[in-house]
């Protein structure tokens, strides 16, 4: 009982601190605006950005953009997860293939998503599939490498114990390999998600006629900084919400169940 009260109080304090931080940020922004350091057109005030927000919410631009972007992202991410895990499993199954591919991993993971855009335009074109291709290429390697290393880092004693109790083949894989690798797989999933999110916005800025990235780039073309900032805030908020309330929550849940958060 006491613990729940404490927890609520902590949550409340966290929220209060976050609100205070946002207020301070807006305060500084307003101050810089009032001092007139930048011309109005380069740096609008918080109120002007709020007005733009209200405008693009009520004319439907924002919802449509967010919907399209998330739709692309989810479809491409699903492809990434499927392909990445399959290749990851193959790397485990065929050791020298796995070793070779793994030795390229640093280059694959560090490869900037934007650098896929010209390739994708020439290969596939200015269309949905072109954007999705960029997103897939930007996140699939992260899934692949994390699948490979999560499975390889399973403590051998779990596998020994399982084999000792008669587990083999697919049931060993399903009942031991996968659950033993799960906490580490989730970390890879979070990383891949953030790569995919970078990629979809980047690709939309350069390749799209709808979506959040496109709203951003229209803002630039029409010298509408309010719209640029409003899209940036939206991108920030979605990234934060998905990680905090979906992926992070999932990771915490799994870590707790696996007993990894038990610092007694």
């Amino acid at each position, binding site marked *: 009982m006491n613990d729940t009260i404490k927890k609520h109080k902590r949550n409340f304090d966290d929220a209060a601190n976050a609100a205070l931080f946002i207020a301070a940020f807006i305060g500084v922004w307003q101050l810089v605006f009032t001092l007139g350091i930048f011309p109005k057109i380069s740096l609008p005030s918080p109120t002007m950005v709020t007005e733009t927000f209200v405008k693009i919410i009520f004319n439907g631009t924002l919802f449509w953009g967010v919907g399209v972007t998330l739709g692309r992202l989810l479809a491409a991410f699903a492809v990434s997860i499927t392909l990445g895990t399959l290749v990851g499993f193959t790397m485990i199954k065929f050791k020298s293939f796995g070793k070779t591919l793994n030795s390229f991993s640093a280059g694959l993971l560090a490869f900037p998503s934007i650098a896929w855009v010209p390739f994708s335009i020439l290969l596939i074109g200015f269309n949905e599939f072109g954007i999705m291709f960029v997103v897939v290429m930007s996140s699939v390697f992260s899934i692949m490498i994390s699948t490979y290393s999560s499975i390889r880092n399973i403590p051998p004693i779990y596998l020994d114990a399982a*084999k000792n109790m008669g587990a083999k083949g697919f049931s060993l894989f399903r009942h031991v390999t996968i*659950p033993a690798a799960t906490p580490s797989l989730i970390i890879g999933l979070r990383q891949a998600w953030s790569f995919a999110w970078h990629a979809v916005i980047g690709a939309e800025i350069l390749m799209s006629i709808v979506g959040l990235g496109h709203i951003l780039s229209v803002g630039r073309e029409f010298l509408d900084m309010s719209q640029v900032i409003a899209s940036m805030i939206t991108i920030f908020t979605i990234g934060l919400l998905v990680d905090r309330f979906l992926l992070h929550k999932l990771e915490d849940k799994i870590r707790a169940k696996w007993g990894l958060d*038990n610092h007694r």
Partner: protein
Amino acid sequence: MTKLQAKNIVKHFDHNGNSVVALDGVNLNVEEGDFVCIVGPSGCGKSTFLNIVAGLEKPDSGEILLNGKPISDPGPDRTMVFQEGALFPWLKVIDNVEFGLKMAGIPTDERREISQRYLDMMQLTKFADSYTYQLSTGMKQRVAIARALAMDPEILLMDEPFAALDSQTRDLLLVELQLIWERTKKTIIFVTHNISESVILGNKVEVFKNRPSKIKKEIIIDYRRPRLAEDENLQQYYHQILDELKSEVIARTKDEIQ
């Protein structure tokens, strides 16, 4: 009746490019219902031997016969209790105990009943729905024993299962294990570096030589049970084993320093 036979087991390891002979012709006969303890200096290859019996490692030459038939792969007829328990943290206690039964394709109701019985035996009834991180080290080892027994193995293999326990918990489990052995009539091979453990538990104690390892001496301990750690009459066996082991431990230490 001979339950398990190890015939001339030889095993090499590669260590920094050198080939090290771990086991150099280990021969062992285990009769049905035996409680065999293997003692030896650390690093002498006694755990390797147990892994070979379990089928987790392959010998370079020699063979293991279970009920007269050679074995090569791991199997639930030889279940192992590992030093660190090796319980699965993603499963509840009862699901850990049921794991092997599930792999064997035994229906849910039946395996629930079996695992419940062994949890009761190990006094873990209350903890059936706990996760393993919620248990103490001693309780984890109880679960590991219940899990191994639930498979109803031909032979139970134990690899220093009490090494990480505090001495009170260990003394308690040493008594319990003897009672379980008497109740279930299981054949047990128990590896330890702790001489008193071997004296308390074993009706046969096999002393392993330092590397290259083989069995140096078998000591029969015919003494009433349950044996207690503080029983003075066990001292003579203790010293008998210690005499055999002392020179091996010294040899081992020399190996390590050089």
